[in-house]
């Protein structure tokens, strides 16, 4: 496999036009590597634990009135949820490619990839807007019942994460435009990408939990 990779420059920056390196060497370099800052991982794991508790609370309360939760879930459109899952998965792989592009100097496609990932994220917001509008048009506000309270709270917190993630993608886009990428830029890119992936990861569970559980 022929890969172009980074070479450190005298000031700690990396060249985007470095020659190929043996894949094995690269694997050794990344063994034991924390993607991004340790702090972002404390935040991510804490966030995941909070969401884990909310998943459990949702199912626990569902047990109090299974029929109500099933009827309410039946008024959602799984197609919206599935499209949003596809959009976030696709944005995630584009971010993976974008970070590879920034890190390894594989190409100058980073800005294009991050723009495409951003577009997928915006697509998610549009679908969510359509879905909320549809529910409110059908008189299904957060106060309708316990299911819809959970639905709006869980998807609302997730949407807040996603909007923060879009700002972070804009930051990634800015880094990817730099002529020279320094070690701090690489670390910041990995931290930002990890946050975006957790937005994807949480939705991957929220979709079946809210739309498909019966």
């Amino acid at each position: 496999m022929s890969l172009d990779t980074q070479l450190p420059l005298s000031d700690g920056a990396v060249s985007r036009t470095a020659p190929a390196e043996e894949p094995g060497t690269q694997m050794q370099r990344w063994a034991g590597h924390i993607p991004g800052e340790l702090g972002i991982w404390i935040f991510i794991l804490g966030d995941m634990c909070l969401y884990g508790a909310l998943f459990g609370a949702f199912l626990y309360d569902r047990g109090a009135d299974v029929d109500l939760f099933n009827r309410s879930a039946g008024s959602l459109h799984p197609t919206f949820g599935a499209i949003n899952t596809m959009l976030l998965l696709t944005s995630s792989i584009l971010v993976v490619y974008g970070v590879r592009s920034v890190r390894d100097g594989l190409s100058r496609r980073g800005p294009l990839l991050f723009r495409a990932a951003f577009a997928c994220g915006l697509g998610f917001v549009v679908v969510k807007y359509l879905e909320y509008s549809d529910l409110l048009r059908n008189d299904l506000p957060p106060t309708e019942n316990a299911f819809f309270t959970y639905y709006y709270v869980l998807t609302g917190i997730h949407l807040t994460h996603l909007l923060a993630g879009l700002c972070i993608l804009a930051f990634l886009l800015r880094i990817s435009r730099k002529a020279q990428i320094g070690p701090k830029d690489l670390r910041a890119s990995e931290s930002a990408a990890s946050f975006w992936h957790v937005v994807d990861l949480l939705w991957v569970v929220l979709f079946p939990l809210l739309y498909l559980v019966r």
Partner: protein
Amino acid sequence: MTALPALIRTPATPVWFLLVVSTAVSWWLGADHGLDDHQAATVLVMTVAFMKTSFIGAYFMELRHAPLPLKLGFQAWCVVVCVAVLLIYLVRG
């Protein structure tokens, strides 16, 4: 500009494909087309969802190459939350 295939030549690419296909299958199962047994369909769909989170961590978030405590912490979340969610679902109905 380097050819695009070099950029996508990573294990994350087939993982993305697998995640998209499994999402489509879950959607189909959950839309009352797959299994008559709703409980079995739910257990299957939720288990697949947590397997997907494990793959996202390992391949998209690059935890495959992370230090063991971080890798284990993340994978432990996937397993513990999956088991807890399924137990609550099965016990509470």
